[in-house]
């Protein structure tokens, strides 16, 4: 069963889908654009914190081992297939295993994990509803069809259950052999199809009765762009530009091969990166402070 997370808890999900989309797009793209170990580590920590916040610590730990396996595979394959770098740790057969390729492997594995983690945050906050309201305006017919599909799927599952229970119950739930059960499955599928088709005729009638195809359709957006969305959008845009400059001008100067060399004098700039990554968490913090005074 799909876990349904309590959306109401997260302040970020109240923001306009454009703001949410901009945030995740920038965070994911930046995570993909740099292999700088400091930035990769930062992205990992921030995404882990946010994911813990959204899913709960236990749920996060459960999914962590998959990430660790990915990390292991990526860094091992880099060590084995890549023998650039000068600091040799040891040899396997004739092959030198270097420190640089180990770090490079961990960083690229970490990058992959970060993208995955950010995507899981994205899928919790950016629901299908939000996605549709953001992009539905571009292709309204498809948005409408998707909305119909989203109604249709749970409805059909419920009907399948209903048919199954009803038919079992009619015969007092007698034990049946495999062959009858198999046949029953086929009849279930066919009667589900028939039922759905029958119902869709009625639905089509109802659509026409409510004036579908009677003229040009407009597209209603349930979301409004509020003052806070504007403020957030501006803040986000500014941080994104700053970070783009930092990442492409400074962070990507990190050199792995042949020896790791890096100018650490400007490392404090990664604070801006942290601000961007933690933006939703900062909003949550602000929200908790605002609510604090109503607590006993």
């Amino acid at each position, binding site marked *: *069963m799909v876990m349904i997370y309590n959306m109401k808890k997260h302040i970020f999900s109240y923001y306009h889908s454009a703001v949410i989309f901009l945030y995740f797009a920038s965070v994911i793209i930046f995570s993909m654009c740099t292999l700088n170990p400091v930035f990769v580590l930062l992205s990992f920590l921030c995404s882990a914190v946010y994911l813990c916040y959204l899913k709960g610590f236990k749920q996060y730990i459960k999914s962590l081992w998959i990430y660790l396996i990915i990390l292991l595979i990526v860094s091992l394959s880099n060590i084995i297939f890549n023998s650039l770098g000068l600091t040799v740790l040891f040899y396997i057969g004739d092959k030198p295993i270097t420190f640089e390729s180990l770090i490079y492997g961990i960083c690229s594995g970490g990058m992959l994990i970060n993208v995955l983690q950010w995507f899981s945050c994205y899928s919790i906050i950016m629901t299908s*509803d939000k996605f549709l309201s953001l992009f539905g305006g571009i292709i309204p017919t498809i948005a*409408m069809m998707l*909305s*119909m599909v*989203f*109604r249709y799927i*749970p*409805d059909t599952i*419920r*009907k399948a259950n*209903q*048919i199954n*229970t*009803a*038919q*079992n*119950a*009619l*015969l*007092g*739930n007698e034990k049946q052999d495999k062959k009858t059960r198999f046949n029953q499955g086929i*009849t279930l599928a*066919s*009667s589900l199809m*028939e*039922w759905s088709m*029958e*119902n*869709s005729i*009625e*639905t089509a*009638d*109802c*659509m*026409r*009765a*409510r*004036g*579908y*195809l*009677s*003229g*040009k*359709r*407009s*597209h*209603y*957006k*349930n979301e409004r762009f509020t003052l806070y969305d504007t403020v957030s959008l501006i803040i986000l845009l500014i941080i994104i530009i700053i970070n783009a400059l930092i990442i492409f001008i400074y962070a990507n100067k990190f050199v792995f091969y042949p020896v790791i060399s890096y100018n650490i004098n400007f490392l404090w700039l990664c604070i801006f990166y942290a601000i961007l990554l933690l933006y939703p968490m900062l909003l949550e913090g602000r929200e908790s402070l605002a609510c604090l005074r109503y607590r006993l």
Partner: protein
Amino acid sequence: MSAVSFINYHFTYPNASDYTLKNINLTINNGQYILICGPTGSGKTTLLRSIKSEIAPVGKTQGKILIMDTNRDDKINKKLAVKVGYVAQDPDNQIIMDSVWHELAFGLENMGLPSHIIRRRMAETAAFFSIDSWINKKTYTLSGGQKQILNLASVMAMQPDILILDEPTSQLDPIAAKEFLQMVKRINDEMGITVIISEHRFEDILSSADRVIFMEKGMIISDNPPKIFVKNLFNKNNSFCITLPAPIKIAKYLGESENYPLNVKQGRQWLNKNNIKLKNSNNNIIIHRDRKAIVLQAKNIWFRYDKQNDFVLRDTSFELYNNEIHAIVGANGSGKTTLMNILCGVYKPSRGKIKKQSGLKTGLLSQDPKALFTKDTLYEDLSLLKDKYEYNDNDIQNILNKLGLDKLSQRHPFDLSGGELQKAALAKILLISPDILILDEPTKGIDGIYKAQLINILKDLKLKGKTILIVTHDLEFAASSSDRCSMLFDGDIICSDTGKEFFSSNMFYTTQTNRMTRGFIDGCIIAEDIKHE
């Protein structure tokens, strides 16, 4: 200006030999509340759908229909979709979108309205129908009653002048149905919108309708205010009389022939005025039951669907005795259907035990008969289990004749009307002939004539030694059919009593007869109990 007028209208379905609608002449004025009634298959739905050009049945027509004084079929008249709102029977199939707000917006989007006007209309409508608390929900999480209110609201958001409802409450439980009909009444009262409704549930609607149009075999037999309609129906001794609400039947029995009381309030006033000495012919027989006669027993059942949810049943115990008709009543969501499914073994309880007398077979007839049919014709479907349950073509034919389904045996089950389908499902379980028959909401969507027939069938089965368990919302039906009644509340059986005892000790949860005669004469449950002294 009249809202709707039919002028010499005839209608024939393709391939049908006879008229479905015959010589309809009808004028409905603006702001009227019109009830259309008649036995199943009298052409009510065809008549109602004919008013709305988008969904009007296709076939041969004669005469014409005017909507707001313009011809229905005028091609120029595209705005008619907006003028006439239509709500059908099935709450599920009319929902189009996945979320409530989108469903409300759907019709308005079709009208091409800009977002800010849609938002405003949505807000207004949501407030009027008090759906604002669930406007952000997904539509598949709603209850049947909520779905139907949403359908009504989405139609009303388009601001129609005429509202057409085709048996809108037949799939709802009585509480939800009352709520829905009150909404419809409000729409008519507060906004003066013309309402044309066909409905089985007379007791909630008869006293508020302006006119009652009675149809039979595609013709309009009478078109009168409710009181005159009732009087004429009795004068003609029409078989449809049986479907009238209890206060009317009681007054008729006690000698009224002019001014019939239409609801409980009027009934009490009528009793007060006429001051008739009454007698209760209902002898409360106390039946002592032997514990050995228990055929099916649930002992301290606990049940829930999954660990995240609350328990649906909490420590429920229940006994079903041999050869009795037992009714379980209770509100929606009190766990009735769940208990049924546990009793016949489809669900396994989390805790507790089900004991069944060995060798007895159970069979449950589920609420939605559509779930039971898998073949292309009714006859084929009924013969499906022929070998396994040892019945033959003769038995099928007998049962079809008995239930009046013989003419429909070659139809596709899904082409049957709601009531016919319910009968067909009953035929199916009667052929399998289990020792313990469990019926879940057998009166859903059926009219009073079939209801009376069903009571006879059940009593007949009891004589043949079967044990019957009914789950129902329909208190009138429970009172007139059952030997014992139980009430399920909040996951537990609160009380079990012999039927008469059960209803006469309740004040709210009881039949119309009991509510009407309380204080005048106690202990009367169904109209037949009341006698002259």
